[in-house]
């Protein structure tokens, strides 16, 4: 241990001292940085390879399509940070959409149907959270069961019909999901931004601030890092877990309503397999399934990358059957890359 006569100076120095030498070293050490690079490279390559990709119409579609996945991926990232998993998001999406659609179909006002749908989503999340936190069941099992229950409830609600009549407020619902807003951006000028993308941006900012700047966010990481330690130091672990599964379900519920508004119709097949795309987006974006790691930005970049791959295959005339292969490879490569980086930095 060194003597510190100049302790005032060295104290400030030690407080200011960060783990990485500089900003560049920090940025380069992040998985999300490399995934962003990959997304940017794919974006540029596609702009050159296809004259359709960089058109406003196509980008409009790409951003709207990925917004649904990205919104849920933000909630999923929160769950994954605590070391959990939520397999029920696809089913919650269709349940929320169905509650909204059916109640409007029955003549209910848009302003009542939406809170009702979100309430249903929150109730599912609360059930998941209570079973996981208080009854101590594994998240995988509880949410797998809920995947089955929520989708089945959506079928019961609609009698498995296709619903496309949304009552007196139909236009409001369709405008919410399918509409857009003119936004003026520097360098680009005026662009049309789909409503789901605006929702995504809002939720992303809220999530980003919550993860980094609030006690709630700090506790997510603490629980994912060492649940026992969090408990011993007075973190309300059980309440936190319930809240995080509710947040994830709420995100899925919001995406469900938006998606119904965009499609203008709802069937019980909506959102089938979404949970896997969402988990893929979160993992590609740097969320670690063993808990304690993940960012809001990463969730969005991960979702964007998946959508860019899907879109590019279509534009380049490659059979859509190949999509799964490409997305799967990206999941493995992203995590593999992270492994290699950890190994080299620990040696």
């Amino acid at each position: 241990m060194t003597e510190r006569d100049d302790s005032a100076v060295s104290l400030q120095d030690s407080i200011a001292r960060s783990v990485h030498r500089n900003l560049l070293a920090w940025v380069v050490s992040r998985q999300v940085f490399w995934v962003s690079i990959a997304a940017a490279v794919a974006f540029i390559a596609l702009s050159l390879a296809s004259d359709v990709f960089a058109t406003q119409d196509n980008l409009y579609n790409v951003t709207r399509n990925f917004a649904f996945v990205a919104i849920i991926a933000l909630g999923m990232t929160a769950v994954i940070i605590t070391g959990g998993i939520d397999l029920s998001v696809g089913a919650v999406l269709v349940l929320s959409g169905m509650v909204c659609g059916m109640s409007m179909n029955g003549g209910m006002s848009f302003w009542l149907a939406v809170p009702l749908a979100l309430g249903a989503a929150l109730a599912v999340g609360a059930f998941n959270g209570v079973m996981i936190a208080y009854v101590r069941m594994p998240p995988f099992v509880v949410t797998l069961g809920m995947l089955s229950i929520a989708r089945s409830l959506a079928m019961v609600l609609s009698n498995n019909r296709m619903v496309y009549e949304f009552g007196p407020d139909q236009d409001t619902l369709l405008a919410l999901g399918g509409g857009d807003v003119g936004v003026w951006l520097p360098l680009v000028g005026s662009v049309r931004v789909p409503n789901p993308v605006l929702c995504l941006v809002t939720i992303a900012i809220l999530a980003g601030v919550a993860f980094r700047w609030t006690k709630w966010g700090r506790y997510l990481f603490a629980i994912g890092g060492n649940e026992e330690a969090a408990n011993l130091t007075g973190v309300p672990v059980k309440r936190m877990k319930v809240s995080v599964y509710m947040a994830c379900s709420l995100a899925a519920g919001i995406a469900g309503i938006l998606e119904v508004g965009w499609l203008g119709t709802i069937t019980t097949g909506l959102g089938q397999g979404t949970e896997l795309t969402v988990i893929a987006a979160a993992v590609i974006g740097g969320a670690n399934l063993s808990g304690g790691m993940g960012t809001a930005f990463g969730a969005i970049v991960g979702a964007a990358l998946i959508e860019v791959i899907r879109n590019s295959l279509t534009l380049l005339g490659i059979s859509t059957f190949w999509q799964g292969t490409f997305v799967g490879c990206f999941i493995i490569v992203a995590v593999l890359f992270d492994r290699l980086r950890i190994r080299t930095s620990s040696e």
Partner: protein
Amino acid sequence: MARLELSTISKNFGAIQALTGVSLTLHGGEVVGLMGDNGAGKSTLVKIIAGNYPPSSGTMEMSGRKLAFHKPSDARAAGIEIVYQDLALCNNLTAAANVFLGRELERGFFPFRFLDYRTMFQRAGELFAELKSETRPRDVVKRMSGGQRQAVAIARTRLSDPKIVLMDEPTAAISVRQVAEVLALIRRLREHDIAVVLISHRMPDVFTVCDRIVVLRRGRKVSDKAIAQSSPEEVTGLITGAIEQA
């Protein structure tokens, strides 16, 4: 007046008698070594002081006031802090985040309350400097040595200006150089007039840093004397039962 006064504490779990009539007095600025074989009742005693569970009989008084803890946070509120054997640290968080875990400082007003990073880094840095540890507030615990981790766990106890610090096997799994660091940290606590209870299997550490040594055997206190009047040989005898009482 004694900092903590335990009188005839007993604890049984069903048919198992874990502690029988243990009385113990702690004073400020004193390091007490608590020794005993596995199952002698050390952890039970510490967990009673820490508020994990109540004694079956007997009383606890702190500076003359009766204590009744229902949960660990009660003990913490009374000024009793514990350094757990596994340190209860989150590897993925920074040193400062671990020091303030569960007691984060916030600024702003509801619902816009945000973590006060600047003050927490500052305060954590001051605590590490006070402990003369080289730990830096922004370092992630994952990359720290065993001694630095101990410093984080000990700095956490200093946050609230505690009266009593209980340490469970702090030197069990670290290198020789780091042991010296941890013992220095314990002395630093003593300088701040804190009563320290050191639970340890390592005889040399106990004899280096403690003022008094208490030996438990099969739930009973068999010795309680100043370190100068005892010896490692005697303590070994007391722990194993070769010496009945001293």
